[in-house]
């Protein structure tokens, strides 16, 4: 649908660029004609219900799956050229699997040894911050601890692009807060983050722009502020005395879901510019006017609702 092309520096390619990216598994169309650009330095949230094709997209970006159609680039390097493209990125998978006989330290050493260059001092700091015991063998780690190994390995690379696939699903709230701090630090250093997550509060807290995927298609890409503006604002009006003229407020453009909880209190959903509604309210005796922007969760559920409809 709407793919917002960003005018990045002409001589510096965006962190991620996909063009008509498509993946078909036998009869299932997992990702359908995905065109998306994530400029350098952006914290991009990648949202969608289960099975929408988020992980498939990420696995194509990593070159683990071959696209059926279209192409993708990481900093201008085609994703098929894995060795070059991966010099610029670090990844945390949704389900971290480690060799059960290796200790956490051995896993980190291995990933550093084959990785795009690791800041060992920063890694030791991260191990302390995430309270990871690196001397345990991977088979003794819980899901959250395995995820910490991958997070520490990824952040310690200081790679210009971090591709994170639900990286906090196994973390406790304290560790999740640490994760958000790391993201903020990464953003301050100018790293780009491609974050797929179901934790909408997390996305809302760290991301500047989100893309919403549904049934393999990108249905929306927008900055969080734009998204809120584009979506419905909830307006609550309290009146000093009944205003019969407002009975026809539902006919105004952009107004929906008008509810009178009493003759003096009115709730409505507003999409688009608020001018006509404000003019209509100007003639009434308004005691209180409350306009609330929707949370990401409400926006997201709105998209889910469309899927059900």
């Amino acid at each position, binding site marked *: 649908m709407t793919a917002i092309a960003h005018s990045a520096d002409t001589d510096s390619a965006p962190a991620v660029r996909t063009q008509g990216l498509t993946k078909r598994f036998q009869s299932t169309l997992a990702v359908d004609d995905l065109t998306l650009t994530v400029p350098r330095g952006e914290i991009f949230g990648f949202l969608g219900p289960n099975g929408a094709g988020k992980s498939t997209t990420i*696995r194509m970006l*990593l*070159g*683990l*799956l*071959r696209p059926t159609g279209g192409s993708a680039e990481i900093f201008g390097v085609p994703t098929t050229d*894995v*060795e*070059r*493209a*991966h*010099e610029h*990125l*670090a*990844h945390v*998978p949704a*389900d*971290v*699997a*480690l*060799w*059960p*006989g*290796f*200790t956490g*330290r*051995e*896993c980190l*050493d*291995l*990933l*550093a*040894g*084959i*990785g*795009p260059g690791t800041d060992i001092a920063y890694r030791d700091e991260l191990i302390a911050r995430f309270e990871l015991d690196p*001397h*345990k*063998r991977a*088979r*003794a780690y819980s899901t959250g601890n395995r995820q910490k190994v*991958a997070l520490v*390995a990824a952040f310690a690379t200081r790679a210009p692009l971090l*591709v994170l696939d639900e990286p906090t699903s196994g973390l406790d709230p304290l560790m999740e807060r640490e994760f958000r701090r790391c993201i903020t630090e990464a953003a301050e250093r100018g790293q780009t983050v491609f974050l797929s997550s179901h934790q909408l509060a997390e996305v809302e807290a760290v991301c500047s722009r989100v893309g919403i995927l549904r049934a393999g298609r990108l249905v929306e890409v927008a900055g969080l502020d734009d998204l809120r503006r584009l979506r419905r604002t909830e307006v609550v009006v309290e009146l000093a005395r009944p205003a019969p003229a407002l009975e026809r407020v539902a006919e105004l453009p952009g107004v929906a879901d008008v509810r009178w909880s009493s003759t003096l209190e009115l709730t409505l959903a507003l999409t688009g510019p608020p001018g006509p509604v404000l003019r209509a309210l100007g003639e009434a005796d308004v005691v209180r006017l409350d306009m609330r922007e929707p949370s990401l969760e409400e926006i997201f559920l709105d998209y889910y609702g469309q899927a059900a409809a």
Partner: protein
Amino acid sequence: MTTRTAPPAAPGTDRPALPPHPGTTVGRGLVRQLRRGTVVVALISGGLAAFVAQEYERTFSGALGVSSLTALAENPAIRTLFGPPVALDDPGGFTVWRTGTVVAVLAGIWGALAGTRITRGEEDAGRTELLLSGRVRLATLVRRSLAVLFGAGAVVGAAVVVGMLLAGTAPAGSLLFGTLIGGTTMTGAALGVLGGQVLPERRAASGLAVGLLLAGLLARMVGDGVAALSWLRWLSPFGLIGRAAPYAENRWGPVLVLVLEIAVLAVLAAAAAEGRDVGSGRWRGRERGRTPSRLLRSLPGLAVHRTRRATVTWSAGVGAYFLLIGLLASAMLQFLRDNPVFAQMAATAGFARLATVQGYAASLFSLLAVPVGAYAAGRVAALMADETASRLTLVYSRPVGRVRWATWEAVAVAAGTVVVTAVAGLTTWIGATWVHAGLGPGEALRGALTAVPVALLCLGAAMLALGWLPSAVLAVGVLPAAGGYLLLVLAESFGWPSWLRGLSPFAHLAAVPAEPVDVVGALGMVLVALLLAAVGLVGYARRDLRG
């Protein structure tokens, strides 16, 4: 379900009824997981046995005299290598002697692998927890697994009975032979389930189960060769096949012993399942590591680290077998000098030039390619297992090309095949030197290393499957050695056309050290192996990763 407005009712009055017999439902699921493998193994076992029996009828029924048979039965070396030869003048007896061990090993190993797959494998993958959150206990699950596996073993045994009956052999012998093969499958399966209860990882559990089963084969060989240790034969299904002597004495006593042994293993497995934590084994393994391995800092290091332990284990197993081969050299040679008829017969059965120590060693070194090929294919299968378990996702999210990583892995495995074969050569030399058989160390090494090209062919075939048929890496990988060996033996036993025989890699191996190395044949095989691996790598680089 209850709603808020409903009057307070007894909890659960409107819940659906409990389904009866959760154990039966679990059993049905297990049958689903095993049925395809069971059918394949049953068809191969029954088909192979029937085929050999029928070919025997056509080719050389009645060609052997009674006195020759007696001499053969009395020779310790023959007994050690091929089991006690009884009733060779009968197509059934010949089939038992020629293919009984092969079929029993095949069925037993399948049973062991299936046993660990449906217990430890399911637990590793986290699926067992899903079942155990229902109304099934771990001990029930293990007992059901044993029951279904024993059913599978019975099917394999029945297939052999039917095959032998269709080939026209005696019903009493057919029934006994099939029962023994079925029992061997069950032994392997019980060992597999037991291994799955003891060790916390599927690969280790499979290794333990298959190792114990093959130790049983070694125990049979030692028991048949050394009179003082003949009681060892009673410990393994392979020894019991010889004790039962199908188509000759048709003894059922050993079958009772086999049933007893299976029962003991099953009870041990069920007992080990009681009161252990799900997700871990009786033996937990160390939780904390020692100093981190320096190998794990680069791709080549990782490849060496992954190959190391398997190489040591396979070297130990193959080394033990070939030490025994070396120790038997003198006894075998003496026998063949005394009975030239058998040297001739062995030659037609794929063991040419047995009459010199070099010929004897060469014949047995060609066998070496089968286990070493299985080792190579197994390592590539381990790579595939890592991929399926998503363990490669982190590696491949680094600047690591698939071709580069798989190539390092293949190089490490290729070096491993050289190590394993060299160990076999050295232990043969040690054994032969012990009995003063006159085999030089250079000869022994050269002879053993002749098996390397065939093992590399297995590696190449496994790499081909890694790229294009990732669900069958192990099966495709062992085909050149195990399938090729069987093809050669059948072709030479029954005088098949030379082009068919030529399909076997073994047809292009010289009998080193009795003959000089066939450089062209060896190079040709290495070239084919490289080609197979290259085609496989092309596919591996292109396909979607699993897991």
